[in-house]
Every structure is written in structure tokens, then in C-alpha cells.
């Protein structure tokens, strides 16, 4: 019985295979070109089809006319406001260059990132996608965005926008189209003279409160880190410093800098005096301003619609004390795993980076443009003012370490505002949390990376995070490592925290020269590291 079953089963399987072979035989030869050709020659809006590339319309080209098959297809992922604009280009682009544009609407710009992270590595990403510049850290490190060379067009873009899309390697990774930053809103009915310092802001609020016209002077609306940055920077606070080359320096965390603590202290005093609520809820802040209960608010262009709709008399201006908000820049990015990288880049530099299209993008987006000539002719007074407030804005750091900052930063300010810690304590804790998160799980590790490591049980040489050569701390505060090393010539160095960022050479100096280790015979080597002098003593047996 059992034999019979297996026999019939194998016959069945063969039958089935024949069946599938027949089925796949016909499309097989045409498969390669078909993947391009069947992607509708006319641009079609495809509602979120991220998982399956086959969801792109597969209709055969209309047989009635002798339609020339498009030379190539460019797939673009855009948000709901920009999709129609890009779709409008499609017919013209197809006629002119014989390249089909397929624009897919992914909802909000913020939602595109998560899709990119999944679809691009799977080889199903678009050729071009929209995004925000502070994704660069993750995208560049993961190899999901290709550099772009704007050539002569570079001069036509706002410098801070280009700076935002430039990664630490000095390369540009996006074609920016608009920028956004907080602006300083004030109620024109309550405020007659625009304050030029933060103390004056409180002054105005104090007077209004005494008259019973206002509940508070100002409120922080939203996560306190980002939304009170203009206050922090006015006192000299910062998040990350920059190195000599002008790139963000993740080792210089400024959350506990003097200016930052001073700024938070100022906020706490404002809360104590009842001039600022201790909650930093987005909705609360906006409602207070929209109902005329507070004369000042820091808000971004995303809130313009609701503030206009509320009917509150308002105007936008630059921040007191030259306070600087963060600048966020949106732009087009190119997928490096796409087959059409050069075409995508050419499309962006030749076709998108034009005044006409940038003007259209500005008109629908309601954000200050990143294109100089469009920005210069901006008529909307609010956006103009916001653009001016943004002139001094700091591009949001685009390094991956910024991801470690947000919650610690927000928590630090919240803890101070709610009186659970003093500003100095809470910001020192926050800065320490950020430093630890940046160091990662290996914070505290002392290691001796070198050319001997593979022989001592590591997967590779020169690995500062290899567990097998991590040193252990003794009671005397010195670190030791004992290893069996075969005869040979070796080099090594001291590295802290499982990383090369802090490493000491044979002279005990940062980034100093390698130690040399020469073993005539296989030996047991004991290394002792003194954290005071940063020197290593080697004894061999």
C-alpha cells in the first residue's frame, strides 16, 4: 500500500510539474522585457502598492495605435499633495523622452520612510522617492539612497537646504524642494510691540495676565525638545556640536551645556511664575493661542491652516534673542538599487530642478521653497516671515545618532518643568543617556584590537568590539587580558566602548601609533591597561 502511495505521489508531482512547465513556458521568453513593457506606457496613479511590484497595471499597450513602447519607466513614490503634480508631468515627459512616469501615492511624506526601508532592500523600491533630510543618517548608512550631483543647478538652491541634504561624507543625497521650521506667532490684538528678547515676552505676558486678558505668556506646543529649541539656542544651548570640517560631531552632545541648562532654568522660572503651563501638549498650546488665551506661540507651517481657520488675529515674525529653530527639508531622493539611477538623476536635475516645477510644488505645499528664485517671489506674508525666521535655522542633524537624542531630550526638559529634578540635574542625566545610547551596548568595554585577534578567538582582526579580547577590570582599577598567541609579529591598540572613536596608541595619546608585539615562540601574553596613563604593559611567558 505504502509503496503504491509513494509511486502515485511521484507521478502526481511529475504531472503537476509538467502542468506548471506548460503554464510558464509561454511567458518565459518574454519575461525580461515584459517587466518593463507591461508597466503601462501611460503614467497611472497606483494607490499604495508597495509589497507587490506586480500591482502596477499590467494592461497590454493599446493595440489600436502603433504605440511605441517606452524606453524606460521611472517609478516615483510621493505623498498625496505632490502626486498629482508629478502625474501632470507624465504625458509630456513620455511624449518628449519616451520614458513613462509611474507615480504612486503613499499618503504622508512621513510614511514613505517605513516603506523605503522594507521595499528597497527587497529590490522592489521605486526609482525616486520623496523624503525628509534627517532620514539620511539611516538611509545612507543602510545604502538606500544614492548621491546626486546637481552640477550647475546647485547655485539655484537655498544653501541651508543643500547643506541639510549633504551627509557627513560631503556628498549631496537629495534634491530639496521645500523647507519647514518653527516661526514666532503673536496675537496682534494683544501684542502691540513685538518683543525682541525672551524676557520681554514674559513681560508682555505678565502685563496681560495682570489685566486678566491672558492665562499665560507662551506655551510650548509639542515635544519640548524640538518645540522650544528657539528658547534653548537663544541662551547658547545646542544639541550636537560641529567638528572643524563643519560636519556634525556625535561626540559633542550639548544637552548639558551651560546655555542649555540656563535656558531650561529660564523656562522653569516662567512656569513657577505661572507664565507658562508645565504641560507641553501640542493640542493644549494651540488651543490656548487660537482662543486668545496666550499672546505668543512657536508653531510651524503645518499649523497655519488651523490657526487661520480659528480666526485669531495673528502675525508671524522671527524669534526673540535670535533664537534658532530646527530646519527640516523635504526633497527627492534616488534609490541606488534601481536599474535607472542615471535616468533618475537626470530626471531630477534636468526636469524637476526648474523654476516652473518648483513654483508649482511651492503653491500646493504651503512651505517656503528651497529654490532661490521661487523663495524670492514668495508673496504669502506668513511663509515669508517663516522663511526669514528660518534663515538662521539649524538644519536638523542628519546623522544617525540624532535618533538617540529625542526621548532623552524631551524627558530632560519635562522632568525640570514638572519639578522632579533641577534643570542642571535633568539635563546632565539626559546628556548622559544620549552619550550611553550612542556608545551603544558596549559602553564601558576596554578592548585591545589588533592583528593578533583572529588567533585569539575573534572573527576578524582589528575588531574593537570582539568579546574574546575584551579586558576585565581588576580591584586596582586596572584592566587585564590574558591570551594564548602563536609566534609572530603583531600590532595592537587600545579602544574604548567597543568602538574606534576613543583609542589610545603606544604613547598613551589619543589616536597614537600602534603597539608592536613580537613573539619568538607561542606564548601566553598578559596585557595590563592603566586607565590613568592609557598605557599597556605586556608580559609574555
Amino acid at each position, binding site marked *: 500500500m505504502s509503496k503504491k502511495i509513494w509511486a*502515485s505521489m511521484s507521478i*502526481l*508531482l511529475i504531472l*503537476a*510539474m509538467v*502542468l*506548471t512547465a506548460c*503554464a*510558464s513556458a509561454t511567458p518565459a521568453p518574454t519575461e525580461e522585457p515584459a517587466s518593463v513593457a507591461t508597466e503601462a506606457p501611460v503614467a497611472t496613479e497606483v494607490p499604495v502598492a508597495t509589497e507587490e511590484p506586480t500591482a502596477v497595471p499590467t494592461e497590454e499597450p493599446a493595440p489600436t495605435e502603433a504605440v511605441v513602447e517606452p524606453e*524606460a519607466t521611472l517609478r516615483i513614490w510621493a505623498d498625496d499633495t505632490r502626486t498629482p503634480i508629478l502625474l501632470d508631468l507624465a504625458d509630456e515627459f513620455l511624449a518628449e*523622452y*519616451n*520614458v513613462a512616469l509611474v507615480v504612486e501615492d503613499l499618503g504622508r511624506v512621513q510614511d514613505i520612510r517605513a516603506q523605503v*526601508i522594507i521595499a*528597497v*532592500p527587497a529590490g522592489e523600491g521605486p526609482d525616486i522617492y520623496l523624503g525628509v533630510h534627517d532620514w539620511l543618517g*539611516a538611509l*545612507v*548608512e*543602510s*545604502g*538606500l539612497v544614492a548621491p546626486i*550631483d546637481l*552640477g*550647475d543647478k546647485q547655485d539655484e538652491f537655498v544653501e541651508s537646504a543643500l547643506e541639510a541634504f549633504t551627509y557627513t561624507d560631503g556628498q549631496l543625497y537629495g534634491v530639496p524642494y521645500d523647507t519647514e521650521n518653527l516661526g514666532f506667532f503673536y496675537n496682534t490684538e494683544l501684542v502691540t510691540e513685538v518683543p525682541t528678547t525672551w524676557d520681554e515676552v514674559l513681560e508682555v505676558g505678565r502685563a496681560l495676565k495682570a489685566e486678566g486678558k491672558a492665562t499665560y505668556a507662551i506655551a510650548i506646543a509639542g515635544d519640548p525638545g524640538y518645540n522650544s529649541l528657539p528658547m534653548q539656542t537663544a541662551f547658547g544651548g545646542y544639541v550636537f556640536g560641529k567638528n572643524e570640517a563643519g560636519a556634525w560631531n556625535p561626540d559633542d552632545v550639548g544637552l548639558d551645556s551651560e546655555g542649555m541648562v540656563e535656558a531650561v532654568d529660564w523656562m522653569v522660572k516662567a512656569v513657577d511664575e505661572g507664565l507658562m*503651563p508645565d*504641560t507641553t501638549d501640542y493640542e*493644549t498650546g494651540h*488651543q*490656548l493661542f487660537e482662543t486668545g488665551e496666550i499672546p505668543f506661540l512657536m508653531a510651524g507651517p503645518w499649523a497655519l491652516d488651523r490657526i487661520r481657520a480659528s480666526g485669531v488675529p495673528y502675525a508671524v515674525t522671527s524669534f526673540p534673542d535670535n533664537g534658532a529653530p530646527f530646519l527640516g527639508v523635504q526633497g527627492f531622493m534616488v534609490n541606488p*538599487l534601481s*536599474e*535607472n539611477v*542615471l*535616468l533618475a*538623476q*537626470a*530626471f531630477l*536635475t*534636468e526636469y524637476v530642478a526648474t523654476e516652473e516645477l518648483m513654483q508649482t510644488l511651492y503653491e500646493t505645499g504651503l512651505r517656503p521653497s528651497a529654490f532661490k528664485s521661487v523663495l524670492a517671489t514668495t508673496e504669502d506674508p506668513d511663509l515669508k516671515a517663516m522663511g526669514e525666521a528660518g534663515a538662521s535655522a539649524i538644519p536638523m542633524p542628519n546623522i*544617525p545618532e540624532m*535618533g*538617540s537624542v529625542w*526621548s532623552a531630550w*524631551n*524627558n530632560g526638559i*519635562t*522632568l525640570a518643568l514638572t519639578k522632579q*529634578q533641577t534643570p542642571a*540635574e535633568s539635563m546632565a542625566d539626559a546628556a548622559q543617556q544620549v552619550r*550611553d*545610547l550612542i556608545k551603544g*551596548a558596549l*559602553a564601558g568595554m576596554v578592548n585591545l*584590537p589588533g592583528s593578533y585577534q583572529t588567533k585569539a578567538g575573534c572573527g*576578524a582582526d*582589528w*575588531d574593537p568590539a570582539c568579546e574574546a579580547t575584551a579586558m576585565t577590570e581588576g580591584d586596582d582599577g586596572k584592566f587585564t587580558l590574558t591570551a594564548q598567541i602563536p609566534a609572530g609579529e603583531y600590532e595592537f591598540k587600545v579602544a574604548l566602548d567597543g568602538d*574606534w*572613536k576613543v583609542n589610545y596608541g603606544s604613547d598613551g595619546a589619543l589616536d597614537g601609533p600602534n603597539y608592536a608585539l613580537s613573539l619568538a615562540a607561542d606564548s601566553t601574553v598578559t596585557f595590563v591597561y592603566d586607565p590613568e596613563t592609557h598605557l599597556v604593559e605586556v608580559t609574555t611567558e
Partner: protein
Amino acid sequence: MASSASTNIPQKPASSTNPALPRLVRLALLVIIDAAIIWFLNRLVTLGYYPLAAVFLVILLFVNVVLLRQEAYPLRWMIVGLVLMTLFVIYPILFTVWVAFTNYGEGHLITQEQAVDQILQAKYLPETGKAYSWTAYKSPDGSYALWLKDAEGSTFLALPGEPLSQPQPGEAGIGELDDKGIPKTIEGYQRLNAIVAATDKNLTQILFGEEGTTIQVRSPSEAAELLPLYVFDAEADAMINQQTGVVYSNIRGSFTSPTGQQLRPGFIASVQLQNFKDFFVSPALRGPMVRIVTWNFAFAFFSLLLNFSLGLLIAIVYNEPGFPFKKLIRSLLIIPYTVPALITILIWRSMLNPELGVIDRALENMFGWAPPWFTDQLWAKVAILIVNLWLSYPYFMLICSGALQSISEDYYAAAQVDGASPWQQFWNITLPLLLVAVGPLLVASFTFNFNNFNLIYLFNAGGPPIAGTPTPAGHTDILISYVYNLAFSGSRGVNYGFASAITIVIFFIVGTITLFQFRYTRMWEEVSENV
């Protein structure tokens, strides 16, 4: 499917008398199913999804064995369920376990193959190399010519395999120059716009000029004498920089130089137990674990206690015959259960808002004080429990009402004869009999609340923050919300490997609790005895 064919002929007492027809139908069906699966398998293998292909292979064998072997007959009724469970439960679990041992996450999202391809595309311009702006010309037979212009403004004509030349207009078929100094025509070629030229995927691969100093198109604005920057040494699993000679060896998913420079991008690589070690050993990631776990248990326990007590109370009250408007009130009480939790949580959030919320404003007006629901740790916890009570009591009300009706009236009659008070009746009859029926649901509810991420995250995202912790954490953070912050917004963006590792740890915690509860309450045995 196969058996439905046999039931189509109900006159025949059993398929044994005339098995030929249903058998054939069954086999035909099987062939179709096999064909579909094999076709799918084929697709998966070509796309390179080997693990999923392996799962489909297992499914294929399973389906065939079950449909062909008589001993496996009972399994036929479950075949669809088992296949779906393999695909949507077991496979994802195995995948999670695999991810837990890798560094899959931002910075390590693509495969090594993809990363190597990308790194090998990097080119460099040697010190003596020159860069030009370019215009492409294409001949009808598909070959290209480039008109190059260097930084000083001199122009060149470049053809594949031939030395650069500097023809003037009129020579060598060069036509008139336009206002940018680029010939409008070249004999035998057609001038291409940058976009049209870029539609040819191979353009960047063509080497122009003579051997030794070949020129390649690098970007829409630049062509240069480029050389590949890296060479991949597959044996040593290392990248070698051609310009500097530095060797970048593969260390946990990044090509790393001896001085610690890493080539971008990184790729997915195995990190063995590193993710688990990070969670248990690293002080930077472990955070205020004891505190979070304590609150996690307290939250799950008090939620269960409060929700069950209120649900039971209401059920008992409305179980009383002759209660006026019973049906109406009962329907109204179910409403919180029918509104999506997402909406309810957000509504509560705004009702408890200290500045604008209805509840806080009302309390403020009546007593001159309202609890700081979002800034004080105790009140934040109370608020969480209140919202959870609102969300869950209708569920317990429903199941208790059902269970109460199944308790025989005879017990109460007997108890009354014995002179038991209503209180005694409740403790000795109602509760024990009720618990038999709803006990497993209580365990399920505890487990659910133990991982009730939605509530915590939507209500206050774990706030208010705890002061002085090594990693950011909040007083109402439960394990899953704390871990979510660590793995998805903590350090370097999304870290799937770490998230999977912690998920597995949480699975074991919850699994142990559940097992213990089932053992302790002897739930399975009791239930089966009663059924």
C-alpha cells in the same frame, strides 16, 4: 475538498463500492493544487526567497501525504487550517528567531551581496585624472560618442576605444556649435538630451577614450577618468581600497578598516547572542528594569481585578429578574466595548487634559484641584487603570452574564433552605462556579494586559519620565512599550534584531506566567471535567 466530491453521490453507501469517480476527481484536484504550489515554489526560488520556498515545499509534501494516505484521513479536515497556521504563525515565529541572532536593522538592512554590488560601484578619480561635463551622441547602430568639456573650457570628442581628439567645427563631421559651445550635429550621430541619454542603462558602463585613461559617465553632469575604488576579495571576505591599499575586513556586517573606518552600506550579518547579551548585560540598555517589570505585573493584576470586579458586579445586578429597563441599560453599558479602543483612548486623553479637559475643568471648578494625570507618576498610573477599566468592563460583564445564567437555580434554592445569606451564596456558589467558566478567560486577559501596548503608547507613551535612569523610560512604561522605544526609536533608529531578541524574552516571561497560572488553577482539568 476531496471528501466533498464523495458526498456528491449520497446514494452510494460508501466510497468503497465505486471509488473510481471520486478518486479521479480527488486526484485531479490534487494535481491542480500541486501545480499551483510548484509554480509558486518556482517563483520563490527565482526571486531568491529560499526560506519561504522551503516552507512551501513542506506544505506540498504534507498536502500530498494527507490527501493520499488513508491513515491521515482525519487530518484532511484540518488541512487548510494547518497550512495557514504554518504560513502565518509558525513561519513568522521562525523568522523572528532568525532575526534575533542577526544585526538586521537600520544600517544593516540589505544583504551582503547587495552591499558588495553597491560598494563596487564606487569609483575614484586618480590624482592625474580629469573630469569633464558631457553631451552624448548616438549613432543609428547604437554606438555612442561623447563631447567633453573640461574645467578650463577645452573641448574633446571621445569615442570608445579611440584616443581623445580636439576637432574644430567643420572637421571630422562636427557641425556648428551652439551657444554653449556644443556641436549641434556630428555626422553619423544624433545629439541626445541628458535625459534621453540616461534612459540607456548601459551608458555608465561604456569606456570612452583609449585604454589606460578611459572615461566613464558618472552623473548627468560629469564624466571622468574613473577607476573602480574597491576590489572584493571573496576568499578573505574583505574589500580592498585601490587608492590607498587599505583592507576593509567584514566585521559583523560592515567592511571595517584597521582604524575602524566602516564602508557604507552595512549589511545583514549574524551576531550570535549579541542582542540577548545587550539586553541582559549592558547597563546602558537594561535601564530601570526592576521598576518596569514591577509596574508591568501590577498593571496587569490590578487591571484584571478592577475590570473583572466591575463587570461581575454589573452582571449580577442586571441578572436580577424584574430590574427595570434592563435591556436598554445593558445595551448602553456595552457601548464602550463596541467603540474602537483607539478612539476611546484618545477621547480619555483629551478629557483628562489638565488645561482643556472636561474632567479636569469640572474638578477644578468644584474642588479647586484636579489630579495631574500626565505629570505625576501615581496619578498617571491611576489614569491608565481607569481608562483600561472603561475599555474592558463590558467584556467581563458580557461573559459573566452568560456564565451566571448557566448556574443552576437549584443551588440557590438549596442554599436558601439551609439559611445561607446572599453574601455566603455569592462566595460559596456564584464565585466558584463562575470561575470555572471564566477562569481561562481571566488568564487570557492577564496575558493580554501584560502586553497591552496600545493603551500605554496611545495614552501617554509611558510618561511621565523617570528621573535619573540610564536610558529614557517612563513611570507607566510596561516591558513592551519600553522595549519598543529601545528598539525602534532608541539608538540608531529601527533595530529589528534587538527587537526580535527581546520579543523572544518576553514570550518566555509571558509563557511561564501563563503556564504557572494554568497549573495553579488547574484550569484545563476543571474545564474538561465540567464539559
